[in-house]
């Protein structure tokens, strides 16, 4: 059994190595005839600039190709600028004549797919087998034997394992702040805009000040209560790899053309169209949720709640997030994920999306109405009846990944009071950002006003997309699994979770009930709470747990060795769920007067 599992592990590692190595193989080759730009001025300038350079017709590695092509485009751009500065050219407009920076990026990006060639492009299915295939096979070889184990809690050795033991607080802080500033600097270079990075730093400063000054967290150093044990080196490697993956995926897809070409046949089979980086991501995501979901079935053989919930997230990921949208495209309908809800789906109200839906006939209009109904009626109603868990740990894609691939890391969430304070400011801040941005987008849509309070809509949108949409939810949200637990995004960032949480906290039948006086304060519940809720602090007082962040994963209840916790819904006491301490041992009436 152990041997089979080890073979499985080896296969997974091999698959990851091949996957990584794939980025270094093959070449890009561009012929002059491949350059078919609509803009003739650009076309001629580029061909001119390339003269004397070993570029057209050459086989170059993707890195060399991109840098060479960029420098040629830059040269062409300078030439065009110079031409124009000698006096306007008859019959031309300055803004079409000149070659702008953003066009340079666009030209590079759009040239990659058609010029890439090599073993991957010739044998995409072979590589698909060597990466996805081997990883799935290895994963299953590792996971399936686990069905033979005794039923029960499977947490032995988690804190002895270099992958899952977590980081010392100061090492973690280093990663966190390093990551934060790196993303801001990157944003500055990418968007050529200093304003938003500065605003972000200012907001971060305000939040920190609120936590430290208003909530007087200064003396409450979580470091003092945190782990002195070694940092898990494998966790750092895994986290760094994931962060790297997301950076390439979001901000430098030109370098991962081989990965995209590898999944191209699958895309053509499903939607008929060619694969993009998003198709690659969707396919990987679905496969991971499926395989790691099977792992959840082995881990929680004894727990039907976990099994049903995991089946649900797998289903919603495979069907709603992956297959249905591709099939819609095949039927010439808009790509649409029926379970993705604004403000998580932050571009739902963007003009292109509204226009696209409204010009797509009855189905498009239905999608629009469906999306709006979910926001206004669906969320409050469903959350009233069963808490935000109906979405966060049953339906949502981010939640789906967190509950499957992220499950081995759930214990790494920070339980300190200070983390909770940060959480509340940051997540509600992101919600406010999303609402303001969407309001601006809609005002622009209906009135045509593109600036509001001195801010340009396009700028706000691009910063939100960059910083929140990609940086926070992707790079930090998933990259930080092995560093800060599997729900960093859901806990600190997701504006939809914030909205669901407000409903759950104030108007919902959901709570985690505490079973009288049975709690022995052992701390399993808090340790395994992925949202960093200190469940024990409620349970040991005999108080029910009503927290806006609780996603209702049910793991606290599963790991509690004394049967203290139960997730349940009840309408009898919606208003007083938070107040009641049902097991105060001494009531005032029992106290005698001296």
């Amino acid at each position, binding site marked *: 059994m152990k041997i089979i599992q080890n073979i499985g592990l080896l296969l997974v590692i091999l698959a990851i190595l091949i996957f990584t190595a794939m980025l270094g193989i093959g070449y890009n080759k561009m012929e002059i005839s491949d350059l078919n730009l609509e803009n003739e001025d650009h076309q001629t300038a580029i061909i001119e600039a390339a003269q004397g350079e070993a570029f057209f017709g050459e086989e170059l590695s993707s890195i060399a190709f991109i840098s060479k092509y960029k420098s040629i485009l830059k040269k062409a751009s300078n030439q065009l600028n110079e031409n124009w500065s000698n006096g306007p050219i008859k019959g031309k407009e300055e803004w079409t004549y000149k070659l702008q920076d953003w066009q340079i990026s666009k030209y590079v990006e759009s040239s990659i797919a058609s010029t890439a060639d090599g073993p991957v492009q010739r044998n995409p299915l072979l590589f698909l087998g060597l990466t996805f295939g081997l990883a799935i096979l290895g994963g299953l070889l590792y996971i399936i034997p686990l069905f033979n184990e005794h039923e029960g809690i499977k947490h*032995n050795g988690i804190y002895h394992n270099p992958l899952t033991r977590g980081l010392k607080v100061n090492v973690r802080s280093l990663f966190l702040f390093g990551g934060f500033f790196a993303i801001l600097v990157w944003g500055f270079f990418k968007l050529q805009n200093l304003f938003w990075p500065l605003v972000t730093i200012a907001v971060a400063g305000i939040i920190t000040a609120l936590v430290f000054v208003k909530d007087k967290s200064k003396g409450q150093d979580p470091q003092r209560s945190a782990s002195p044990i070694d940092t898990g080196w494998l966790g750092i490697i895994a986290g760094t790899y994931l962060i790297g993956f997301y950076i390439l995926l979001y901000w430098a897809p030109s370098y991962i053309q081989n990965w995209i070409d590898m999944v191209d046949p699958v895309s053509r089979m499903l939607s008929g169209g060619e694969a993009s980086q998003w198709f690659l991501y969707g396919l990987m995501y679905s496969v991971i949720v499926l395989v790691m979901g099977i792992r959840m079935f082995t881990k929680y053989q004894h727990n039907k709640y976990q099994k049903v919930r995991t089946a649900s997230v797998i289903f919603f990921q495979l069907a709603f997030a992956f297959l249905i949208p591709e099939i819609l495209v095949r039927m010439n309908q808009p790509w649409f994920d029926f379970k993705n809800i604004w403000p998580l789906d932050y571009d739902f109200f963007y003009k292109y999306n509204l226009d696209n839906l409204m010009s797509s006939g009855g189905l498009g209009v239905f999608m629009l109405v469906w999306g709006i109904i979910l926001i206004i009626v669906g969320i409050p109603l469903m959350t009233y009846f069963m808490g935000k868990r109906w979405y966060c740990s049953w339906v949502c894609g981010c939640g789906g990944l967190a509950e499957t691939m992220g499950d081995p890391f759930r214990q790494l969430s920070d339980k300190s009071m200070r983390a909770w304070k940060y959480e509340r400011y940051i997540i509600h801040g992101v919600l406010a950002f999303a609402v303001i941005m969407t309001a601006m987008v809609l005002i622009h849509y209906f009135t045509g006003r593109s600036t509001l309070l001195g801010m340009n809509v396009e700028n706000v949108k691009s910063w939100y997309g960059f910083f929140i949409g990609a940086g926070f939810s992707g790079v930090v949200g998933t990259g930080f699994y092995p560093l800060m637990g599997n729900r960093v995004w859901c806990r600190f960032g997701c504006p939809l979770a914030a909205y669901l949480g407000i409903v759950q906290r104030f108007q919902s039948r959901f709570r985690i009930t505490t079973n009288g006086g049975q709690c022995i304060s052992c701390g399993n519940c808090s340790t395994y709470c992925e949202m960093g809720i200190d469940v024990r602090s409620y349970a040991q007082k005999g108080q029910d747990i009503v927290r806006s962040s609780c996603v209702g994963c049910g793991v606290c209840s599963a790991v509690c060795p004394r049967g203290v916790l139960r997730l349940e819904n009840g309408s009898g006491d919606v208003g007083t769920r938070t107040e009641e301490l049902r*097991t105060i*041992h*001494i009531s005032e009436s029992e106290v005698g007067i001296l």
Partner: protein
Amino acid sequence: MKHIVIIGNGISGITTARWVRKLSDHKITVISSETDHFFSRTALMYIYMGHMRYEDTKPYEDWFWDKNRIELKKAHVNFIDFDQKQLQLDDGSSFSYDKLVLALGSKSNKFGWPGQDLNGVGGLYHYQDLEQMEVYSNGLKRAVIVGGGLIGIEMAEMFHSRHIPVTMLVREDSYWSNVLPSEESKMINNHIIKNGIDLRLGVNLGEIKDGGTGTANAVVVKESGEEIPCGYVGLTAGVSPNIGWLIESGLDIGRGIKVNEYLETNIADVYAIGDCAEQQSPQPGRRPIEAIWYTGRIMGETVAYNICGKPVKYNPGLWFNSAKFIDIEYQVYGEVPAKIRDGMTTLFWKHHDNEKSIRINYDTDSRAVLGFNLFGIRYRHEVCEKWILEKTHIEEVLTHLGMANFDPEFYKQYEQNLIDQYNEQTGSSVTLKTKRGLNKVLAFLKS
């Protein structure tokens, strides 16, 4: 403002400190020699098994104490001068108090076995015991555990989690059979064996052998003379109050420190609580010394009221408890003796997987329910307690038994099976009317 000094930073001492702070402005000092901060002893096993770190077992963050003006001192108290109201600490300093709370906890029992003080022999009570276990675990070929109580099985599970072979020597003929009814006890025997633990029933420890270096290297079974080679011996034959050093001190001491129902000792301004306290007149259905978590917590709260001039009697309420035997959870509410006493009828149902069971005891004449025993199934504390305190008729309880069920959503419910059993046993025709669900419970508890 008085100076309240508490010796012991376990659940009872800390609960006292917290409640004194809630109720008053007194100066509070907690002295303990075990760890800097309060941690949950009940979670020791999870640290060893890698489920949690030591830090995760601390119920309060380290800044909590400053913020609530509770002073912590890490030192051992060697001597108490009750006349001068002074403590002498192991660092040579002395310390005065106005009111003193003794929350000293327990220590592992040792019954004078030959070899019991060798290296590689230890109990599991203090944090230091865990550190010892850790030292000997490296390369350990076999551990022998002496004693089959709650801590014994925890220790077995700990070694087992690291794939270290374990032998358990249990004096009784069946696991924990002095507390558990025999059906349940047998179920746990099975479960222990199923987990690959070498369970020896009805045997005693003869002697622990010295490998020549002052370290244990084998255990001899008294009955058979069999020698079991091992690298570690766990002594888990119960615990007793940790009060050896107070015997000549003038305190009234029996097995523990004797206290009245206000938790006062025979000496003015000195209280004793938690594992180390012995009730002079325990409440009906309760034992004089109860070394369990929640009684320590209740005593801590009670003593705080008494210290702050609001006298209130210690009242632990109806007996309940819980534990976990490897993967089988256990809960008990009310009266469930190992042997059914006269005038008591028992209703017992066991799942064929041999890992779940429900037992309800009731009075043979009045048919009022007396106790619940649950294995592998969770029941609600407050609902069971209310039924028992109100002497509810067994058929009424069975009719609404679903209310008691506390298992997670989607779990199969076995109340119907128990009712079928009852109907068969008595010829009645009770039907299950209330299933699991919170709304009914809320209404019931309010009524």
